[in-house]
């Protein structure tokens, strides 16, 4: 059996193993980055104690969570309590299978890729609802109910936003969508900015992030559906949440931000951007080496130097395809290596926006959140899809140029959005009970 015959079977398995093995680590470090970003915005330092600049904090946290006593409340439904976090984690991880991290690094390029991702990631709700119910606590129950309502509502508008991009791409395959953006040279964020905005908002809500973190609103519901969870099970929920963040960021990157494409991929003038990845890596490495002597403990010095060396190694990997002679195997690996970099870079940027929003905005109230979802986002996303469809039809059937039809669609969608915003203001009822009470008084009483 030759190598070419078995490679299509071995590679996906390898990729899957890499993802499953690395994801907990990645999630841990996203938490660290989040804390650092938060600290930066809040005039403090964040974790600084465990490892240089707190770089080992995620590992310490993971060890702590694994060593904690495993508590199942007495009145909980043991089986569901045990299984619910597994459902969440599994669903979140499975969704990554169809996402192309670069043109080379993808587990499976399904022709129904996006449908699969949407379907699988929706299953994660079961984990939350069942976990909240199985805990047998009021806080958990309320968190779970909120979560179910919220996710179902926002999945609608997120789905609609995705449909807009699908219309533009004409395929459900994630790889095909990026290819379409490469061919036209226009990322879909520029063609359908409203769709991207809707997806941004909806994806924050779907991942239960502030300002839509109702299910685990800590100042109201303690920890929502996770209230009764601790130790490793809690870590699984946490892992699921951060994996979901990666998933929605990957979807957004694939659909709207050009996937693995370099900015201005088709323009020769911007070819110097190919050197951005390695310069970034060199800069990080340089920073690490500069800080190495300043670390107080020997172990920390070594760790800092190791991180610097890793960055250097990455820089080397990123440089190799650029300087290799054209036509060689290394040079042909350039899209794969640089594509992976740009994909991860965009995912990181998207997640950064998540964090930025989280530390800027207060939290919506549950009814306001639902109103925003159903009265603003869902209608807007439907208008968005219709406008894109009309624009494409005008282009394809009547031959109108794209640069007229698409901006026209965007403008009309924005007008619709402004109208929705203006009318939505009138519907806000601060005190929920008042209207109902008045109605009750008016109703005839049959004793």
């Amino acid at each position: 059996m030759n190598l070419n015959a078995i490679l299509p079977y071995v590679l996906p398995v390898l990729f899957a193993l890499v993802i499953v093995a690395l994801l907990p680590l990645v999630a841990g470090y996203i938490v660290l980055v989040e804390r650092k970003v938060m600290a930066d915005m809040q005039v403090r330092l964040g974790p600084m104690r465990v490892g240089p600049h707190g770089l080992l904090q995620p590992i310490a946290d993971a060890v702590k969570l694994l060593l904690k006593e495993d508590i199942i409340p007495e009145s909980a439904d043991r089986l569901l309590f045990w299984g619910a976090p597994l459902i969440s984690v599994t669903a979140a991880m499975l969704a990554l299978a169809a996402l192309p991290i670069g043109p080379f690094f993808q587990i499976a390029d399904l022709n129904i890729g996006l449908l699969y991702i949407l379907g699988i990631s929706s299953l994660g709700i079961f984990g939350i609802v069942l976990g909240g119910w199985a805990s047998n606590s009021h806080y958990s129950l309320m968190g779970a109910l909120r979560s179910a309502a919220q996710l179902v509502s926002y999945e609608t508008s997120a789905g609609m936003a995705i449909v807009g991009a699908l219309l533009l791409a004409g395929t459900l395959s994630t790889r095909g969508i990026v290819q379409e953006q490469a061919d036209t040279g226009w990322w879909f964020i520029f063609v359908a900015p409203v769709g991207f905005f809707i997806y941004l908002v909806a994806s924050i809500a779907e991942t239960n992030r502030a300002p839509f973190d109702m299910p685990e609103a800590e100042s109201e519901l303690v920890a929502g559906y996770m209230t009764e969870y601790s130790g490793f099970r809690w870590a699984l929920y946490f892992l699921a949440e951060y994996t979901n963040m990666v998933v929605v960021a990957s979807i957004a990157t694939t659909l709207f931000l050009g996937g693995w494409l370099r900015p201005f991929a088709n323009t020769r003038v911007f070819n110097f951007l190919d050197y951005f990845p390695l310069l970034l890596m060199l800069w990080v490495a340089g920073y690490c080496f500069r800080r190495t002597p300043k670390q107080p403990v020997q172990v920390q010095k070594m760790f800092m130097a190791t991180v610097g060396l890793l960055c250097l190694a990455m820089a080397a990997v990123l440089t190799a395809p650029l300087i290799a002679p054209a036509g060689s195997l290394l040079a042909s690996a350039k899209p794969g290596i640089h594509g992976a970099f740009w994909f991860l870079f965009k995912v990181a940027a998207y997640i950064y926006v998540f964090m930025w929003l989280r530390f800027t905005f207060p939290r919506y109230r549950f009814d306001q959140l639902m109103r925003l979802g159903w009265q603003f986002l869902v209608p807007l996303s439907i208008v968005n899809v219709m406008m894109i469809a009309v624009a494409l039809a005008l282009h394809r059937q009547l031959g109108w140029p794209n640069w007229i039809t698409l901006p026209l669609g965007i403008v009309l969608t924005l007008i619709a959005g402004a109208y929705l915003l203006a009318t939505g203001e009138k519907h806000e009822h601060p005190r929920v009970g008042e209207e109902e009470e008045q109605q009750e008084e008016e109703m005839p009483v049959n004793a």
Partner: protein
Amino acid sequence: MADRYNNFGGGSGGVNVETTVLGADEIILNMGPQHPSTHGVLRVKLRLDGEKVVGSECVIGYLHRGVEKIAEHRSYQQFAPYVDRMDYVAAVSNGLGYCEAVEKLMQVEAPPRARVIRTILTELQRIASHLFWLGTHALDIGALTPLFYCLREREEILKIFEKYCGARLTTHAFRIGGLQYEAYDELEKDVERFCKDFDKRIDEYEALLTENRIWVGRTKGIGILTAKDAIAMGVTGPVLRASGVQWDIRKAMPYAAYDQYEFSIPTGKNGDTYDRYLVRLEEMRQSRRICLQGIENIPAGPILGKVGKVLKPPPGEVYHSIEAPKGELGYYIVSDGTTQPYRVRIRPPSLINLEALDQMIRGHLVADVVAVIGTLDIVLGEVDR
């Protein structure tokens, strides 16, 4: 006794949570005493219909230390540090109220220099207290960042206190008859520097919150308290003023050196959470104004009036109240002519304001309960004493 506590927080026509039969769709949610946003150890029993609050009951006393009883076994000076531990977020104000009450009882007056320094420190404390309120209130509503900006500024104030008397939180800054310590040399400079920066800093908070759609949506129309209800329930402080009542003891019955300074009393219109937010922000600006006027001219002279080492007030009683950051803080002291008070009764603003909670949250959602608890600006150390 038990009856009284069970009905607490019921207000007029209040629903006693425990003795009322629950409807089919209703649940009882026990919020606290260990809950992230009940500001300490407040426990609220909520009767919920879905997420709507149909009744509530406050259970207090988890932080009861018997401060009033302790007073009966301490001399007048010995008791002074204890009052700092009631509203520990505004210890200086607590101390001022107590010292002035005892001075009134003994019919002595603090010298002008002491009065001005007292005013400056108390106003700084008001800013610190409001900053702490703003940060935690915003945190309750989900805005994580303002807390740290507020604490940054509060830190500056605490540093001034530390330089003045060595303590940051429970300062025991004043002494019956005047001041414990002479003002340090750079006090004026420190206060001026703080006031200079602080103007811009308030604008920063406003930029984060005041016009923010989510913030407005979460606070406007929430926890409305009409002026009539507020007066009927004895609510004081910013909560009362946000309902449109222009009542401030600093103006109505001036104490310390407030009659020398110009400042205005901000009031709200609707009595909702948003108005209370605006009123407190404006109060911080006014306090800053008072501080700036205060440091302009601190009179020279002694810092301690004519009080002996052993305080023996004549038999009698006195009630003295000040405008603490949270409302009217009153001390009722009965003296039997010995060195120890016969009875000290404290009117804590937080406790009285907390009574309005039930009425303010009824018909709102669980999330609003947190917002309303925050906007009342209670400190459980003061509620329970």
